[in-house]
Structures are given as structure tokens and as C-alpha cells.
């Protein structure tokens, strides 16, 4: 188990991360998600010992790693640009961590065979690392990290240098490997799709501060604050400023009522609703809006509507595709009030009933 307590790191005047707390269970796939510059890589490097922390504690198996050299932390890491040893063959790259950790020489070939099989690297084992394609290099980098069965496996945006298709493919691959080896993993990404598909749990970071920690469903369905709500999900969540009075509020010109909020006092709020939670109907008494642009996104269609000079985003599933009119035509909408989340106008935090 990896535990991080009050992790704080400053670079000169800039705060890279501040009071970060989280626990990663054995075998868990934990994702650090956030926009670039949010401090997620710093957290990873602190765990690896590549940076010295200003304050806080990193604990692995009930032991503080603070005073332990990188070399002695049983931590492996995959770098964004792989950082393979360019003068060595793939085999030499894979052997390197074993050699450094004085693994029994007779066992090394066997271990290499195994990892090469797992990552399907057998056919380029004796090529020089620099001569490989991006995807192959990525595998080698992962292989080099896993070959010595580390306690903690760190990945720093490992897929961001690859093209979309390869990324997809390797994502699945990574999930498979993780299932097979069951190593405690911390994965850094700015890509929410990666985070959602790979993560057992996700930690969302912004400007070095934790926004929310939770399983992907929670993060998506009840984002703890507006930043998380907006950062997660495509297209972006719809937000409406409104007043909450005795559980009632106005949204897109119509009244809505959510029972669970009835006990909360009157206040200015922001109502948020996911694009897929707004329905297209043709009953004639729904909310009127105008279709501006429609985009096909796989099975779904993304609609950008206009209502009272405000953009409204919709995700419409295949089944309802027939109801979509032509661009510039009118659309009729319906909202399920239970799907609406309310955020405090001042604190931007989710209002919990």
C-alpha cells in the first residue's frame, strides 16, 4: 500500500503541489488526472524520489520513503519520452534494472523471455533501442519498468507521444498487463478518457491541489466541484446560473424541482447537467431551442444548440438519432430534474442534499 500525506513541493516561488493526501491500495490502478502544469508529474517524481519534497510523507508498506534514495525505492517508472538507453539493445535495456539490482545472472534470460512474451517484444529483442518505432519503444519502456516486479509502478503520460489508434491499442494492453501482474500503479495523464478507462480510482488535480478523489463513476456522475464537472466529460457539461428556492429553480426558462434539495435554504446556484441527460422530444410542449451545429461522434451525435444566446450541448444516442432536425432548425428539449446537479455559486462546490 502506498500512502501520500501532505505532500508539498515548491519550485522557487511556484507551488507545484500542496498538501496532497491519498492512499493507493495494493494492486490498485490509481490515476492522477489534470491539465498540464497541475503538478501531477511532480507528485509522481516525488514518489520516485527524483525530486526532494519540502514537506509531507510518502509511505510504502508502513515505511517512510522520504529518506530512501531513488535507487533503493522499489519503484519503477515509465517516462513520457520512454528514456530508453539508446546505445543498448532492447535486451540490454531490459536486463539493466536486473543487473543493477544484482539479480541472479542465471535467472535473467528466463525473466527476459517472460516479459518479452507478456509484451510481445520477442521479435525485436536484439535491435538497438533507437531503431524502434514509437509503439515498440513504449513497450520496451513498460517492460523495463516491470521486469523487476516493482512494488509501485509509475507511469508519466506514457501514451501521449503516440498516435490515436496506437494509443487506444496500448491502453487496452496496459489494462491487460495490470490485471495480469496486479502491481500497485500510479498513472499520470491529462487525458480523461485514459483516466476513466484505466483507473480504479482517479485523483483530479488543479494547480497543485486535490479537487476530488474517487472511482470513475463518482467523478463523472457527481463531480465535487465545477472544475471537475467541466474538466470531465465530452462535450462539456451545461451550466446555468439560477436561484434555488425551496427546492425549486428555473432552468432554460422552465421550472424544475428536485425534492432532495428542498431542505436547503434559498441561494444563488449553478445548475449543471450532462449533455446526454438532456433529451430531444417531439411532444410540442418541451423547451424550445435552435440547432446550430451537429457533429457525429461514433454512435452518438453531438449537438450544439442555442437558447437565449446561450450555447447548450447535447449528446444524442443512436436510438434517438431520427429526432435530430437539420441545422438552424428548431429543437424541442426535455430535462429530467433528478439528473441536474447544483453547485454553490460562491464556493463552486457541489451542494449535497
Amino acid at each position, binding site marked *: 500500500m502506498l500512502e501520500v500525506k501532505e505532500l508539498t513541493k515548491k519550485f522557487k516561488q511556484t507551488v507545484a503541489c500542496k498538501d496532497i493526501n491519498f492512499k493507493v491500495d495494493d494492486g490498485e490502478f490509481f490515476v492522477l488526472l489534470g491539465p498540464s502544469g497541475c503538478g501531477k508529474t511532480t507528485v509522481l517524481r516525488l514518489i*520516485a524520489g*527524483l525530486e526532494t519534497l519540502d514537506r509531507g510523507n510518502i509511505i510504502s508498506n508502513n515505511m517512510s520513503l522520504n529518506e530512501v534514495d*531513488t*535507487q533503493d525505492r522499489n519503484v519503477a*517508472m515509465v*517516462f513520457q*519520452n520512454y528514456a530508453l*538507453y*539508446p546505445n543498448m539493445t532492447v535486451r540490454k535495456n531490459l536486463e539493466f534494472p536486473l543487473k*543493477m539490482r544484482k539479480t541472479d545472472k542465471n535467472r535473467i534470460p528466463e525473466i527476459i523471455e517472460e516479459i518479452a512474451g507478456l509484451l510481445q517484444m520477442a521479435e525485436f529483442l536484439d535491435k538497438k533501442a533507437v531503431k524502434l518505432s514509437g509503439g515498440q519503444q513504449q513497450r520496451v519502456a513498460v517492460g523495463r519498468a516491470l521486469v523487476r516486479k516493482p512494488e509501485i509502478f509509475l507511469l508519466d503520460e506514457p501514451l501521449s507521444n503516440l498516435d490515436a489508434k496506437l494509443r487506444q491499442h496500448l491502453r487496452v494492453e496496459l489494462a491487460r498487463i495490470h490485471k495480469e501482474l496486479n502491481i500497485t500503479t500510479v498513472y499520470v495523464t491529462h487525458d480523461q478518457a485514459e483516466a476513466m478507462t484505466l483507473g480504479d480510482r482517479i485523483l483530479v488535480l488543479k494547480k497543485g491541489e486535490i479537487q476530488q478523489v474517487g472511482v470513475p463513476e463518482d467523478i463523472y456522475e457527481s463531480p465535487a466541484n465545477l472544475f471537475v464537472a467541466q474538466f470531465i466529460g465530452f462535450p462539456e457539461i451545461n451550466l446555468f446560473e439560477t436561484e434555488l428556492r425551496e427546492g425549486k429553480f428555473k432552468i432554460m426558462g422552465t421550472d424544475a424541482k428536485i425534492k432532495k434539495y428542498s431542505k436547503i435554504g434559498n441561494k444563488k446556484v449553478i445548475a449543471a447537467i450532462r449533455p446526454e441527460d438532456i433529451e430531444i422530444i417531439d411532444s410540442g410542449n418541451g423547451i424550445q431551442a435552435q440547432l446550430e451545429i451537429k457533429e457525429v461522434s461514433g454512435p452518438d451525435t453531438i449537438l450544439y444548440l442555442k437558447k437565449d444566446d446561450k450555447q447548450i450541448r447535447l449528446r444524442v444516442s443512436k436510438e434517438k438519432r431520427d429526432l435530430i432536425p437539420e441545422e438552424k432548425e428548431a429543437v424541442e428539449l426535455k430535462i429530467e430534474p433528478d439528473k441536474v446537479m447544483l453547485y454553490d455559486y460562491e464556493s463552486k462546490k457541489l451542494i449535497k442534499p
Partner: protein
Amino acid sequence: MSKSAKRKKWALLIYLGPAMSFLSVFIILPILFLLGLSFFKWDMLSGIYSFTGLSNYLGMLKDPNFYNALGNTVIYVLGTVPLGMAAALLIAVIINRKIRAFSFYRTAIFMPVIVSLAATGIIWLWIYDYQNGILNHILVEIGLGKVNWLGNPDIALFSVMSVTLWKRIGYNMVIFFAGLQVIPTQLYEAAKIDGARAGSQFKYVTWPNLLPTTSFVLIINLIFAFRDFSQIYVMTRGGPIGSTTTLVYYIYETAFNEFNIGYAAAVSMVLFVLVMILTYVQINYFSAKER
């Protein structure tokens, strides 16, 4: 030949032309001239010369001064090149680790490079001076006796070599430093994570990635070491009793004090061939390694 190939050939000529003609006028022709000269006996003053065949070369075989110079050159090269490179590499690695804190030292170490060799020689002549030199002054202060740095034939060559090192280390360091900067820091981080400590990091990351730089520095240093002249000329004039006479200085002595031009040309050719062979071997060795 196709049209584009023809054009390529012309382009090649145009681009290489100036450099090639410069090379041939200032380098290749003089070497050929020297080769020719080495088969002659030539009196520079009267301009009278006579063909003597291989006698200059055969004379060399029986010339104890030639062997002395050859021996001194070997000691000089072996003493300055590896040490000068190793020390420079060490300093470069240390400075590369803590770049900002060390920028003063970087300047200090590079300083000797921009001072001309002759001026360097004069400065060291003063430092080494037996009676009034600062080095002996320090030795006496700390209770040790004076050393006749340049006057003792057993020490003089090493004193000269020290000056060469003093100068060359700075030069090598700057080149090594440039080579080190190109190595991505992530490689060191990866190696750290893989369990490599400073020693292994040097062996597996720094050294192999620096190989092209090292090869360049080695070749340059060897050529420098074989050619070094000014510090010897200024500081010892080849003495005492020939103890600092290297091949280059011997060539100078023979040509311009003895006016034995043909013989000097023959010794020059030996030196030339020696350097050629060494350079050739090295280039082959390193390019094989890089493959």
C-alpha cells in the same frame, strides 16, 4: 550518367572546391614537397642540393638524438593525453551536475585555453624559476627543499607536461561539457530508478553517450601532443641535455639551428606517418564501436 547525377557532381565540386584547393595549396603540396625534400641534402644558404636517396632515413636509424626525441615524444604523449582527458572529463562531469554553482570554476578552468602557448610558457617559466619562482617559494615555506623544475633533466619533461596539462584540461573540458549537455537528463533519472548509482550511471549512460565526443577529443589531443612546440621552445629549448627534445622540437633544431633541412624533412615524414597511423586506427576503432 543521368542529368541529375551530373548536376550533383558539379554541385559537389563547387561546394568542396574552395576547401579542397585551400587544403591542397597549404597542406597537401607542402607535405609532398617535404617528402621530396627528405631524399635530398639541401643547404638552405647557398641553395645547393643533392639527391642522397634514403640516406637521411638510414641516418635516422643510427642517430641517438632521434631515438631520444622519439622516446621523449612517447612519454609526452602518453603522459599528457590520457591524464588530460581523464581530468577534463572528471571536472566536466562534476560541473555538469551542479551547473550554476560551478560557473565560476568553469571560467577559471577554461581561462588557460585563451592564453597563447608562448605566453603560458613565460608565465610558467616564472612559476618554475629555481631561485625566485613561486612554486619553490611555496615548497620552501612548507619546509620542503627547492626543486629545479626545468633545470633537472630528470624532471624537466614532466614540468613541461604539467604546463601542457594545465592548458589542455580546460580545452578538453569545454568539449566534454558540450557533449554532456546533449545527454538527456531523463536517461540519468531512468538509470537512477533502475537502481544505478553514480558509478553505474557514468558507465552506462555518460560514457557510451559521450563516445563520439571522447573520440574527437582523443584524436585532437593526440595530434596536439605530437605537435606541441611553443611551451618547449619558450621554457626549455629542448634541454637540459635533450631531456625535453620531442620530435617536433628536434625537427626545429635540425632544420633551423643545424640547417640540415633534408634530415629534418625525413624526421617530419616519420612524425607524419606516426600521426596518420594513430588517427586511422582510432577512427576505425570508434566507428566500429558506434556501430
